[in-house]
C-alpha cells in the first residue's frame, strides 16, 4: 500500500505519463493518415487502450494505453501528489484559504465576465497578479501558481471528458428563404415512419440506427405493425440492378477489345510508338517493360522492337500489358462516381456475375424490386459518412405486408395500411428545436478576381416557438457564432442551389456542449498559474542576484 501510494504521488509517474502521452499524441496523429480523423480519435484518444491489429502502421505498438487511461492516471497522480505534499502553511490555514479563495474565485469572475473583451480580460488578470504577488511577498501562498496550473489541468481533462460524453454536434442546411425547426446529426441516421395525423400534422416514429441489427424485430406502440430487419448494414451501397448489368457489359466489352489489341506481338512496336508520340499510358508500358526485365528507357520503342523479335519475351510482355491495362480499366470503373459501376467492377474481379436473379432480389415491394443492397466498410475520412442500409419486412397480425429496401440514398417510399398512408425511409437523425431559424441571406465574398473565399456570412431570423424570442437579422459568420439557449450556431458551409444558382444555401453547425466553459476556465487557471509561478521565480532570482 505504501509503495502504491509512493508510486501515485511520485513525480516519476508524472514524467512517465507525459512520455506516454507524447507518444499517444504522436502516434494518434500518424494514425489519422490511415484511419481517418474520426476513427483515429475514437481508437486512440477516446479509448482505454489501443491494441495492434494486422495491417496497422509502424506507429501502433502491440499494446498501448489509450487517452482515457492516461488521462485518468494523470488525474490520480496530480490529486495524490498534491494531497501528499500539502503542508500546513506558516501563516495558518485561514490565511492560506483566503489567498487561494481570492485567486481562484477572482479568476473565475474575470474569465466569465470579461471573456469577450480581450483587453479588459488581460488587464483583469494583470491586476489580480499584482494583488496575488503582493500578498505572497507578505508570506502566504508560495504554491498558488503550481496549484493553479494543476487545478487547471484537472479542469481541462474533466472538461474534455464531459465534452466527449455530453456534446452533440448537428447541422442545419437550408436555402435562402427557407425555415427549419430541426437540425440533423453528422454521422447518425434513423429509420422513420410517418403518417398524417387528423390535425394535418405529420406524426413521426423514429428508430435510431443503433437499433437496426440484422434479424431484429422492432415493435413500437405507435406503429400498428412490426418491423423485421432481414438485412442491415452500417454502411451500404444501393445498387440499381439494370444499371449494374449494363456497366458490367460495358466493362467486359472494353476488356475484350483490349485483349484483342494485345494478342499479337506484331502490333507491339507500332503501338509503343503511338503511345510515345501521341501521349498515352506510357507509365503502364514502362512498368510492363520493367517486369519483363527490360530497362524502361525514356523512349520505349527500341526496347519494344527488341522484344518483339523474341517470341517468348514478347508473349510475356503482352501478358504483362494485358494484366496492367486490365487493372487500370477496372480501377477506372471503381473510381467512377457511380456505385453501380464500382459494384460491376468488383463483381468482375471476383469472377461473379450480375443477372436479373443474381444477387437475389432484396424484397418484393417499392424500390426493392429495382435495387439491392451491398454492405461497405466504414467511412474513414471527414468528408465521407456512413450510409446505413436495410431490408425490412413489415408484418401485422401475423401476416407479412411485404419487404422493402431502405437507405438515405432512396426517396421516401409509401404504403397503405389500416386506411392510412405511411411514408418511410432512412434519413439523418433529426433533433427538433423549440425555435425556427429562417435563412434570410447568404453572403459569400471572394477576393478580387479570384475564387479565394474572403467572407462567409449567413443572415438569419430566429423565432422561438413560444414567441419568447424573436431576433431579426442575426449575422453568423466564420469566427463569430451565435449563442442561444445553450446552443452555439456556427457558419459551416455555403453554396448555391443546384436548380437555381442565384439562390444561396448555407449549412450551420449547431453544437450543444454544456461543458463549453471548462476549457476557458481551465486555460485561465493554467496560464495564470504558470505566469505567476515563473514571475515569482524571476523576482526571487533577481533578488538573489542583487544580494550577491
Amino acid at each position, binding site marked *: 500500500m505504501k509503495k502504491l501510494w509512493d508510486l501515485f504521488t511520485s513525480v516519476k509517474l508524472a514524467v512517465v505519463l507525459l512520455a506516454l502521452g507524447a507518444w499517444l499524441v504522436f502516434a494518434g496523429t500518424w494514425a489519422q493518415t490511415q484511419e481517418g480523423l474520426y476513427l483515429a480519435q475514437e481508437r486512440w484518444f477516446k479509448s482505454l487502450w489501443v491494441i495492434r491489429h494486422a495491417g496497422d502502421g509502424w506507429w501502433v505498438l502491440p499494446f498501448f494505453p489509450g487517452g482515457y487511461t492516461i488521462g485518468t492516471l494523470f488525474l490520480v497522480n496530480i490529486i495524490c501528489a498534491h494531497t501528499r505534499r500539502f503542508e500546513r502553511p506558516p501563516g495558518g490555514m485561514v490565511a492560506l484559504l483566503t489567498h487561494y479563495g481570492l485567486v481562484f474565485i477572482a479568476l473565475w469572475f474575470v474569465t466569465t465576465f470579461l471573456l469577450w473583451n480581450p483587453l479588459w480580460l488581460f488587464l483583469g488578470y494583470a491586476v489580480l497578479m499584482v494583488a496575488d504577488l503582493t500578498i505572497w511577498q507578505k508570506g502566504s501562498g508560495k504554491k498558488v501558481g503550481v496549484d493553479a496550473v494543476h487545478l487547471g489541468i484537472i479542469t481541462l481533462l474533466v472538461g474534455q471528458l464531459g465534452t466527449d460524453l455530453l456534446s452533440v454536434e448537428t447541422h442545419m442546411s437550408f436555402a435562402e428563404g427557407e425555415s427549419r425547426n430541426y437540425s440533423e446529426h453528422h454521422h447518425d441516421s434513423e429509420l422513420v415512419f410517418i403518417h398524417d395525423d387528423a390535425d394535418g400534422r405529420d406524426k413521426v416514429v423514429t428508430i435510431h440506427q443503433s437499433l437496426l441489427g440484422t434479424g431484429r424485430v422492432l415493435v413500437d406502440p405507435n406503429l400498428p405493425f412490426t418491423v423485421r430487419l432481414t438485412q442491415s448494414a452500417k454502411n451500404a451501397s444501393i445498387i440499381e440492378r439494370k444499371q449494374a448489368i449494363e456497366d458490367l457489359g460495358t466493362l467486359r466489352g472494353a476488356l475484350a477489345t483490349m485483349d484483342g489489341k494485345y494478342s499479337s506481338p506484331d502490333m507491339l512496336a507500332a503501338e509503343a510508338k503511338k503511345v510515345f508520340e501521341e*501521349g498515352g499510358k506510357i*507509365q503502364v508500358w514502362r512498368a510492363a517493360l520493367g517486369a519483363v526485365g527490360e530497362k524502361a528507357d*525514356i523512349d520505349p520503342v527500341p526496347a519494344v522492337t527488341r522484344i518483339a523479335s523474341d517470341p517468348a519475351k514478347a508473349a510475356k510482355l503482352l501478358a504483362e500489358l494485358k494484366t496492367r491495362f486490365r487493372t487500370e480499366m477496372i480501377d477506372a470503373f471503381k473510381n467512377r462516381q457511380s456505385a453501380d459501376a464500382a459494384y460491376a467492377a468488383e463483381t468482375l474481379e471476383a469472377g461473379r456475375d450480375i443477372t436479373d436473379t443474381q444477387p437475389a432480389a432484396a424484397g418484393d415491394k417499392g424500390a426493392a424490386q429495382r435495387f439491392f443492397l451491398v454492405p461497405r466498410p466504414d467511412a474513414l475520412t471527414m468528408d465521407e459518412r456512413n450510409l446505413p442500409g436495410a431490408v425490412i419486412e413489415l408484418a401485422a397480425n401475423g401476416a407479412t405486408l411485404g419487404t422493402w429496401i431502405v437507405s438515405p440514398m432512396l426517396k421516401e417510399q409509401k404504403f397503405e395500411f389500416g386506411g392510412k398512408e405511411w411514408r418511410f425511409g432512412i434519413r439523418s437523425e433529426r433533433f427538433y428545436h423549440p425555435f425556427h431559424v429562417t435563412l434570410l441571406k447568404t453572403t459569400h465574398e471572394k477576393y478580387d478576381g479570384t475564387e*479565394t473565399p474572403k467572407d462567409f456570412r449567413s443572415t438569419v431570423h430566429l423565432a422561438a416557438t413560444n414567441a419568447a424570442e424573436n431576433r431579426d437579422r442575426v449575422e453568423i459568420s466564420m469566427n463569430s457564432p451565435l449563442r442561444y439557449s445553450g446552443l*452555439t450556431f456556427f457558419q459551416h458551409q455555403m453554396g448555391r442551389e443546384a436548380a437555381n444558382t442565384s439562390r444561396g444555401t448555407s449549412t450551420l453547425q449547431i453544437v450543444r456542449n454544456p461543458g463549453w466553459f471548462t476549457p476557458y476556465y481551465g*486555460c485561465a487557471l493554467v496560464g495564470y498559474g504558470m505566469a505567476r509561478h515563473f514571475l515569482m521565480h524571476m523576482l526571487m532570482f533577481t533578488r538573489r542576484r542583487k544580494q550577491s
Partner: protein
Amino acid sequence: MKSRIPLIVTVLFTLMVGMKLMPPKNKADAFPTLEFGKLPIIQSGRTQPMDSLARNSLLQLRGKQTLNTEPWKGTFDKPKIISAVDWMLEVMMDPATADTRPAFRIDHPDVKGLLGVPMTADEKLLSDGKHYTWNQILPRFDALQQETQRAFRVKDKLRDSYQKALVDLWKAIRSYKSLKVTLGPAAGGDLTKGLEADLAMMKKAREAFEAQMDGRPGDNTALAWFSERQDENVALVIPPTALTNGKDEWTRSINAVLAVDRGAPPNFALAHYAKMAAAFKAKDAPAFTTAVTDYSAALKSTGLADKRIRKASNEQWFNFTELFYQGMIVAVSAFIFALAVWFAPARMEWARLTALRLTVLTVVIIFGGLLFRIIHEGRPPVTNLYSSALFIALGASVFGIVIEFMWPRGIGTAVASLMAFGCLMVAHFLALDGDTLIMLQAVLDTNFWLSTHVVIVTLGYASTFVAGILGIFYILNGVFTKNITPEMNKAFYGAGFAILCFAMLFSFVGTVLGGIWADQSWGRFWGWDAKENGALLIVIWNALILHARLGGLVKERGFMNLAVAGNCITAWSWFGTNLLGIGLHSYGFKEGAFNWLMGFIAVNLVLIGIGSTPKESWRSFAKAASN
C-alpha cells in the same frame, strides 16, 4: 584597437544594409523598366506592383527571381542575366522573343523525355539540360496535355514524382500563358488593330458558345481563346474610371474588350499600355519612359487609385531591398564571431561584443522587414508558414540576446545568430513557392486570433528551439572541449531552465488560444487535428522536461538532451504535421521539405546520442569525474 572592432564591424554591416535601402535606379545602359515595375495591378486578390507579378511568375517557372538567358554558359563566362520585369515585358509585349528564352525549369527525366528536349547539358544545342524555352515545349504540347490531364485526375497527395513534375510544369505554363494575354488588345502595340482582332474573336466565341448551348459543334479555339483570358491567373490590369457600388473594381483586359463590345469607349489604360508595347517593340527607351509616366499620371488623375499606387510602389521598393537576405548575411557573420569566443573565452571579449552587436543588427533588420509586412498587409506578423519562419527568427534572436545580457558568456548570441540564420534560410526556401503576401482564407481572416494565438504559439516554437539549440551547444562544448567550466555549466543550465519556462508558458497559452479559436469558429475546443496535436506535443514535452528536472530524474546533461529532443518535436509540429497532408491545417505541402525535416531530426538524434555518452567521455568533465 581591439575595443574598436565591434563598432567598426557593426558600422560596416549597417552601411551594407543601408545601401540596399536606397530606392533602386535604372542602369544607365538598360531599358528603363523600373517605372514599369512600379505600376499597380491586382493579382491573387491583392494589389501588387508589376515587379511582384514578374518575380512570382518567374519563381513559379524556374524557382529564381531572375532569368539566365544563356544557362549553358558557365558562371565565369558571364551569361546574360535579366531581371524578372525585363523578362515579363518581353512575355507581354514581345512574345516571339520571350518564347526563345529558357525560362522553364524541368528536372524530371520522364518529362524531358515526353517533350523530347535535350536531356543533358549540351553547349552546341544551347541547352544546360535543365532550362527550356516555350518553343521547345510547344511541338509536344498535346502529348504533355494528355499526360497532365491524367496526372490531375490523381489526388494530389497520391501523385508520384513524375505526376507532380507534370502538374508543376502545367501550372508554370498556365502562368506563362496568362502573362501573355494580360495586356489583351494592347499587347501588340496598336490598340485599334488589337481591338478589332479581339472583337472578331469575341464574336466567334459568342457564336461557339451559343452553338454549344444548342448542342451543335462550335469553334473550340475561340472558346479556349476566351477562357484563357478569363483565367483566375490573369492579373487585373484595367483600373476603374468610376466607382461601381462604392467599390473601385479593377478588371482583366478581356473585360475592357467586352465593355468596348457593348459600346463603351476603350478604357484609358489600354491606350497607354499599347504605347508602352509599341515603344518596347521599337526599342525606343525614351518613348517607353514617356508612356509609363503618362499612364501613371492618368491613373493618378482618376483619383481612385492613390492607395494602390502607393502600395505597389512600396512593395517594389521592399522587393529590391532583399532585407531578409541581408539579415541572413549579418546573422551568419554574427555567428562566426560568437563561435570565435569559445576558442578563447578569456581573450575574446571583443568578438563577443561584435557578435552581440551584429545580432542586434539582425534583430533590427528582421523587425524592420516584418514591420513593413505588417503595415503593408494590415495584418499581424504571422499569416503563413513563410512569415512564421521570419517570426521565429525574430523571437529566437530576441530570446538569445536576453540570455546574453543575463549570462554574458557568448552563449546567447551564438544561439540567437544561428537561429536567425537558420530560420531566415527556411523562409528563403519557403519563398520559392511564390507570393509570400498571399491573401487569407475566410476562416483565417481575423486579426484578433492571428495576433494572439498565432503569434504566441510561434513564440512557443521559437523559445523551445532556443532551449534546444542551447542544448546542442552544451553537448558539443561539453563532449569535445573543456569549455564547460563549473561557471559555464551554471550559466547554460540557468539559461536553459529559464527559456524552457517561457517555452512552456508560450506553447501552452498559444495552444489553448488555438483551441478557443476553434471553439469560436467550428464549435469544438479540441478536435485532435494534426496541427493541434503538434502544438500539444510541444506542451507535453516541455512539461516532461520540467517535471523530470523537478523530480531529480535528470541533471544538466539529461536536461540538455531532452531539450535537444525538443528540437525534433518542434520541427515536426511546425512542418511535419503539414506534410502528413491531413486535417485542417494541411496547407503548404512541399516535397523537398520532408527530406530536410528528416535530416534535421536525424542530426538532432545523433547529437542526443553524443550527449548520452557517460560523463567520463565528456572532455569538460573528464577530470572532475575521475576524481
